């Protein structure tokens, strides 16, 4: 007699823990043939607010980590993902992806993490400047994370879209609340387990599943979210979210993009979620004209 398989409960990821949605609701993800694969959490507005609280709590400490350390942690995520590749591919196959597409999706996701891991301790050198002001001041501009970022992961890309939006945000010292792909949420939840095993501090990444029309407006209008990132959503949806974002002047980015392309990664994805801070300090005039030999 064949063995009874132990099925996995797909929960959400908030503040480094795996709770069920507080709403107690679910939606069923089915295979291509229509067989039920998982009962995924249908998150509520309250889940969104809880996730924002967790992300805010984690933000200061994450931003204060050494850039080098953030790079190591991002690289660690890539290592963990590489080790569990087959699990992700199986999930995609069960959803009807071809072997080739599933393989590419996961391979590129790992590459992307490695790419942004390498940026952590470099981007600030490129986007910062020392400004030669006319007065006797030392003046420099450097980048700081915007804070807590709301992300709508690309619906059509189960893992690559999510990672492509998430990695530049956390590489730059932000913390995030991610609304996963609605149609393909399994990889997102399994990825939370990878994050959990990669020394990513709790709250830095929070992943919710469910209906965007329920969660996204709450996230976009939340007064403690600093910026909002969406990709490949409809023009109408994007406009309504932009309007939601006005009340605290969130920075709003909607990328229309194919995440499989080489140009779908880059320094500017980090830069979009950074604030430029300029610091001035007087320089003492002590003469010294003769010291130029």
């Amino acid at each position, binding site marked *: 007699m064949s063995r009874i398989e132990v099925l996995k409960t797909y929960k959400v990821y908030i503040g480094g823990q795996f709770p069920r949605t507080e709403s107690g609701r679910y939606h069923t993800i089915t295979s291509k043939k229509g067989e039920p694969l998982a009962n995924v959490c249908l998150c509520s507005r309250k889940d969104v607010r809880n996730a924002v609280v967790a992300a805010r709590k984690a933000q200061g400490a994450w931003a204060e980590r050494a850039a080098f350390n953030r790079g190591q942690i991002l690289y660690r995520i890539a290592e963990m993902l590489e080790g569990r590749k087959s699990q992700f591919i199986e999930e995609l196959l069960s959803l009807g992806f071809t072997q080739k597409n599933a393989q590419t999706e996961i391979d590129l996701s790992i590459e992307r993490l490695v790419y942004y891991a390498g940026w952590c301790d470099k981007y600030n050198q*490129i986007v910062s*400047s020392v*400004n*030669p*002001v*006319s*007065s006797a*001041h030392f*003046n420099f*501009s450097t980048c*700081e994370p*915007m804070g807590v970022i709301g992300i709508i992961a690309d619906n059509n890309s189960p893992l690559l879209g999510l990672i492509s939006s998430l990695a530049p945000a956390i590489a730059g010292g932000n913390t995030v609340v991610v609304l996963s792909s609605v149609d393909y949420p399994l990889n997102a939840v399994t990825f939370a387990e990878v994050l959990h095993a990669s020394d990513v501090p709790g709250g830095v990444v929070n992943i919710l599943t469910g209906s965007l029309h329920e969660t996204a407006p709450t996230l976009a209008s939340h007064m403690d979210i*600093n910026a909002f990132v969406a990709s490949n959503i409809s*023009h*109408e949806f*994007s*406009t309504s979210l*932009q*309007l939601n974002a*006005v*009340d*605290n*002047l969130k*920075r709003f980015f909607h990328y229309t993009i194919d995440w499989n392309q080489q140009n779908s990664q*880059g320094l*500017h994805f980090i830069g979009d979620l950074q*604030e*430029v*801070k*300029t*610091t*001035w*300090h*007087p320089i003492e005039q002590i003469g010294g004209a003769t010291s130029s030999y």
Partner: protein
Amino acid sequence: MKNKEKWPLSPSMESTQHISLKKQYALFIDGKWVAPNSGKYFPSINPADESHIADISHANEKDVDLAVRAARKAFPSWSGLAPSERAKYLFRIARIMQEKSRELAVIETLDGGKPIRESRDIDVPLACNHFFYYAGWADKLAYAFPNRQVEPLGVAGQIIPWNFPLLMAAWKIAPALATGNTVVLKPAETTSLTALKLAEIIEEAGLPKGVVNIITGFGDTGSALVNHPDINKIAFTGSTNVGKIIQRAIAGTGKKATLELGGKSANIIFDDAPIDQAVEGIVNGIFFNQGHVCCAGSRLFVQENIADKVIRKLKLRMKSLYVGNPLDKNTDIGAINSKEQLKTIESYISIGKKEGAEIYQPACDLPKKGFYCLPTLFLHVAQSHTVVQEEIFGPVLTIQTFRTIDEVIQKANNTPYGLAAGVWTDKGSRIFNLTTKLKAGVVWANTYNKFDPTSPFGGYKESGFGREGGIHGLAAYVKLS
């Protein structure tokens, strides 16, 4: 005894003989001066004595449309011009502005009420330098955006405030032109004159017609510009409320925006700070330009153990400030920009008193005519006081004390704004701690209210987004791929 009684100064008035102003100004559209379609004009008033200076055109929707069309028509050839040639036009503008700097300074002071010392030594030179700085960028954009294709956005609609009229025009126009965009600029209704003088300079510089269009008017003019379908970019400096209205108006249109909005900036004095310099910094932070400064250091935080000393010295220093005719070179605090703004400030002062704060204003004779406000301190205020929370945009300072660095960081950041901050301490490690902890786009350490074309300026949170000035200011006007 008041210092001013002991050592009175003789008036030292700047001459207004060498300026040339028309009685009536048309709109500058497509390289020509055209009468407004509306047929309406409004007076520009000298806030120092309420005299009438000139009549200004009130542009309506149709005028805005003409200006945008002119800018659109000029865009292909302007963006297609060799960048080094574009640069030369900007250098020309900078040079002519330098040549006419005294005239510009006097007109700025007449029209806006700021002390001549400030318009002459700060506003006008900074405006010239801004053109000079961005001129040089025009043919070097590939260095600013490595590995990216750089293109201009198209037509930029630009709306500027009344506190630094010419300087804001320069902040907006110079980077837009350097990157190959064409421009429709609307100055604030109380301070149109230096923008119109700049239009004359642009004409004199021989800029191709339609590259810069300057239209004057009120909020309805600005609104028509924001909502015009053929604008690619909105650059706005002004209040946070209007900034949000603009954001709502352009949601879903694909128009890019940079917003430089309000502030309620903290100026923090630690007990090891050089007190006399800090007091100068406090005065410069809040009374510079009558406090009509978005980044004004309007919330003072003094460490508790030196509070009495700082407040005593600050009051003494305030007694020696000259409030009066802005054309007088002795004047420290000029005229409030408009009657309306004076009313706003006065209402905040009465709210402050009503809410129980202790007020201090030095004794000082104000001119009989014109709009003037005494430099004002509010002591014994809490975070919950209206005068601590809201931007007053006048010479009104609130003073709070603190004991620990954690406490002052929390208090300083406890505002929806995030434009600027000041820190006064002798300890370098503390400066670096604070500059990272304060959520503000500009941090002045042991100085305040310093500006430079090379230095990016702009805010966090509800103080807006995008930067103006420096290499970072270019990003606001380019499409990258």
